[in-house]
């Protein structure tokens, strides 16, 4: 069978790629995509531990479902904000939206 640490290493790799994307991409939508990668990595972790430790209770699945809901809500609000920002600045590049910098 598949050992648990394979899933955890895969989730860690996905999370670190998402981390790299958040820190280094310029386009705000690309940053949001990297955040989605991180959330998916977290979900894989949750479900792997649920499956390998306590599959009789649905706790792991409930946690993962709540993470789905939160991710969907965050993407919706984030993208609406990007559209509003684009209307004001005519750009969604993260380094061009710097009015609050001193």
């Amino acid at each position: 069978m598949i050992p648990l640490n394979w899933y955890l290493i895969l989730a860690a790799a996905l999370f670190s790629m998402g981390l790299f994307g958040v820190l280094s991409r310029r386009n705000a939508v690309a940053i949001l995509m990297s955040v989605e990668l991180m959330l998916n990595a977290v979900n894989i972790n949750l479900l792997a531990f649920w499956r390998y430790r306590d599959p009789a209770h649905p706790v792991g699945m409930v946690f993962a479902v709540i993470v789905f809901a939160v991710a969907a809500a965050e993407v919706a609000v984030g993208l609406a904000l990007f559209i509003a920002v684009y209307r004001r600045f005519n750009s969604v590049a993260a380094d061009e939206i710097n009015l609050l910098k001193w």
Partner: protein
Amino acid sequence: MTAMQIIFLLTAVVTLFSAFRVVTTPNMIHAALWLVTTLVGVAVLYVLLSASFLAVAQVVIYVGAIAILMMFVIMLTRREMRDHGPQIGKQWPWAAVLAVLFFGGVVWMVQSMSLAAAPAAEVPQTAIADLGKALVSPNGFVIPFEVASVLLLAALIGAVYVAWTRRHS
């Protein structure tokens, strides 16, 4: 190498490669499509973890709604049809170092734990029914469920309000 391990390795390679392309490709629409491939790969992983309902929910929510919404916004927030300017910021080597350090740290921590090599038990047949009952039963998780519903309602109203076109009066 059992069949399941081969399937896992194939899925892992596809998912990780697509995630790498998400964060490195300069073309935004291609990045969104690589994200779709990553999300479908993660859904396959959920199937391998016997969470079939979550796998299908992942495809419905992420691929069917979130990825499409992201593509819409990419199309709506560009000055011309092509992406212009560098898509990777100036400090990307530091980000790469940080990501590699993080990955190394987590792998070292995982390898130092003694983890199970096989699942503890079988998933019961009534797993989906149990999930449904747990989400709405008072001794279960009804409060997080209701809070998540309120969150989604607030996000819905907020997103519509923020993105509404203001008529210049």
